[in-house]
Structure formats: C-alpha cells, structure tokens
C-alpha cells in the first residue's frame, strides 16, 4: 500500500556541515494520526517544514500523493508552534483568507469560514481580533484556517506546546473530536510523550540531532478516546514504551559520541 506522504532518504544540512535532520525514511498513511516525538533540537520542526514543502531536503525526496512534493499549498494544512493568526484580520477573516484567495465568492467564504470556526468551538468569537484571544483560542483559529482548505493532510508543530496544562488537555480532546469527524491525515510533532500516545495511531521517536528514526510504536488504544483513556493500564504501558525508546535514543547517541 502506498503512503499519502513518502519520505525517502531525506537529509537536511544547514550552513556548513551542520546536519539538522536525517537521513529519514518514513511513510504517512492515508487517514492515520502520526505523532513525532524527540528531544528538543533534534529536527522535528525541520521535518515538519520539509513535509509542508516550506523547505527542501538537501538529500533524498518527499513524495506527496505519488508525485514529488513541489512546495507548500492548501492541500497541506499547517499549524505552527507560534500563534500565527494575522492580527489585522478577525478570527473568521483569518479562516476565510485562503478561500478568498482561491476565488470563492464572498458569501461562500464567510459561510464556510464560520462553519470551521464553529467546528473548533470558537463560534461566539468569530468577529474578535486575534490580539483579544487567548493562546489556545488563537491555535483554534489556526486549526480552523488549515482545515477550511480541506487539506489532504494536517501538519502540526507542537501546536499546544505554549499552552497551560488545562487548555492543552481541552484542545487535545477537541483535536480528537475533529479528527474523528473529518478523518484528515495528521502529522503531529510534540515533545510531550503523553500527548503523543493520547492522540496518535503511531508514534515515531527521533534521536537527538541529527534526528533519525529510532523507533516506531503503534498505539493500539481504541477510539473514541476520552479522558478515561489516560487512566487505563494500556495507556501507561504505551507511554512507558515511548519514554523508554526516547531515553534509549538519547543514551545511545551520547554514548556514540564518547
């Protein structure tokens, strides 16, 4: 079975000899929720930017829907780590922007945008300026904005990393609900093991820089997942396995350098 996104021998070298990532081989399957975890600085953001077409690999190539990935576009929705709402547009206008760019008539843009604003639970705030929204709300806008384009895949780079624990937990549940509703293939970068296990169908563990794949752990927890899922023994076992893999990745690496 061919993957929606196929990463083949991808390596990203920065100025000089600094290898930021890779080489990496990875397939993202249609409809799956893939989480990528790794120590900070290992190249997670680099990988996500490569998947989004915002950056080009130094070696290797990325295939998207069977063809070489040429660049970014609405088919690959991205939610960034930092809040990236355009501050001069209201929440709804932020979501409508790409629809407008694609030439959708004004009324359709508004209606569509409102639908996705509602989907992420921001209905009453659709006319609010981003500066008046909390961090969690701004990330909801960013998610709505990416989804409104009906992307083939949703790529998220530690989207909840800067949020407080409660908001983060709420948004994780919302994301699970949205994923169940839309079934959109998702790649989710995080350094939070709990989050990865709770959300994903599969967790990929990267080594410290240059990030390579150290382990792939399938998450067999049934959906729909709820807060209760986190309390079960299966969750603890999986989380322990991911944590062990991560520790092993860091340990092997630092040993290799001695």
């Amino acid at each position, binding site marked *: 079975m061919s993957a929606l996104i196929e990463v083949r021998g991808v390596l990203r070298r920065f100025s000089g000899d600094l290898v930021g990532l890779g080489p990496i081989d990875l397939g993202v399957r249609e409809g799956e929720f893939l989480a990528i975890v790794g120590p900070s600085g290992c190249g997670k953001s680099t990988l996500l930017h490569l998947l989004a077409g915002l950056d080009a690999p130094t070696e290797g190539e990325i295939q998207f829907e069977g063809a070489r990935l040429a660049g970014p576009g609405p088919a690959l929705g991205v939610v960034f780590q930092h809040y990236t709402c*355009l501050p001069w547009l209201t929440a709804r206008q932020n979501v409508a922007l790409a629809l407008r*760019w694609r030439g959708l008539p004004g009324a359709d843009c508004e209606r569509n945008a409102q639908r996705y604003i509602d989907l992420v639970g921001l209905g009453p705030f659709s006319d609010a300026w981003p500066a008046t929204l909390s961090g969690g709300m701004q990330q909801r806008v960013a998610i709505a904005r990416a989804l409104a384009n009906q992307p083939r895949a949703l790529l998220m780079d530690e989207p909840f990393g800067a949020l407080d624990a409660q908001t983060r937990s709420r948004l994780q549940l919302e994301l699970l609900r949205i994923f169940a509703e839309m079934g959109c293939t998702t790649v989710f970068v995080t350094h939070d093991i709990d989050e990865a296990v709770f959300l994903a169908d599969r967790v990929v563990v990267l080594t410290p820089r240059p990030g390579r794949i150290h382990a792939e752990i399938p998450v067999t927890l049934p959906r729909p997942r709820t807060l209760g899922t986190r309390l079960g023994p299966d969750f603890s076992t999986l989380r322990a396995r991911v944590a062990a893999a991560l520790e092993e990745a860091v340990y092997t690496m630092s040993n290799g350098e001695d």
Partner: protein
Amino acid sequence: MRTTVATCCVFLLLWQAAVSTGLAPAAFLPAPLAVLSAAGHLLASGIYFDDLAASMSRVLVAFGLSLALALPLAYMAGTSYRMGGVILPLIGFFRYTPVAAFVPLCILWIGIGEPEKVAIIFIGTFFQLVVMLTDAVRAVPEEYYRVARTLGGTRFQVLRDVTVPASASAIYDSLRLGLGWAWSYVVLAELVAATTGVGYRLVEAQRFMRTADVFAGILLVGLVGLLLDVVLEYIKPVFFPWQTRR
C-alpha cells in the same frame, strides 16, 4: 507631569526676570507676555491663517508626491533583496546630504516659485521615507509569509493581503515622523524668496526688527507641528482597530 509644569514655570520666570531686570534688551529678547500678545495679534489679524494654508498646502503637495513615489520603491526594496541592492545605495547618498545644500540648486534649476518650495520639501522627505518605509516592509515577520505560502497565496495576493496590512502600522508611524520633517522644511523653503507662508512671516518680522513677532512665529510653527503629531497619534486607532491599545 508635575515636574514638567514646574520646569516650564521656572523657565518662564527666569525668562521674565531676565527681561524685567534689563539683563537682556527687549529688542533682543522680548518678554514672554509680549510674545504671547504678538502671537495673539498674528492670529487675530487673519493673515496668519493664509500663511498656514499656504505652508500646509506646500507640505501636503510635496509630502503626497514623496509618499506616492517612496511607497512603491519601498515595497520593491523591502520585498526583494536584489531590488533593495539597486535602490538603497542611491537613496543613501542623498539621505545624508543636508536639504539646505540643495536650496541654491533648486533655485538655479526651477526658479523661485511654488515648484521650488515643493522641491525642497520633497528632497527633504523622499529619501528618508524610502529608507524608513523599506525598513517597515522588511520588518514584516517571516512567519506571516510562511503561513501565506501554506495557504497558497499568489505573489500579488500575498503582497496585497499580507505585506501591505502587516507593514501599514509601521508605515503610518513613519509618515507621522516624515510629516514633522516636511513641516520644518517648509519653513526652511520659505525663508528664501517667498511671499507667503509661516516661514516668510518669520523673515518679514526679522526684517522689521519685530523680535516679539519672530518669537511668536517660532512658537506657532512649533505648536502646529506638535498639534499635527499629536492628532495623528490620537486618531491612529481609527485606522488600526485590531491593535490592542496600551
């Protein structure tokens, strides 16, 4: 605030004392009250409003021209490093040459009419504006462009819907500064070969040794400049309702 008021009072008292004690002759330094009454007369006579209108229209024409030419250049230089490399070095030379140095050349080339006044203000503001507006455009965060690319905007759409609104607030601030310069250059331009304007009124008072009128002229020019700046700052939220007010 209280210290500001106190400082001003002390300053005015010392000034008045210097004049009352005869330390400074009135022809050299008129008393504060004399300046105030001269300003009152200037305003009451109505001439001053004609001068204001003349100066202001020169500023608006010249600054409008400056802006109309600087904006496209700044967007080119600010969005493309290659264009920046072409445009900015040329601008840089003129930017560091004092405007006053161009006055004789302007008179030589275009005479002493209105176009010469406009040209001096234009020279004084245009080059500075290009540099400041380019900085404003360059300061648009890379993240916005990254988002725009993931949303699939064309070059023109990104320019219109991201670059322009993202730089608008900084550009507005630059315009406020630029207008202040334009206001001071109009006075300079009117010192030479003018028959109207707030600068001309100063020269005329000087010719007739009406020192109090000179002082009053300076005071009014300063107040108008200050008023322009304050008003522009005050009404900014009307244009940028999305910015949180401090």
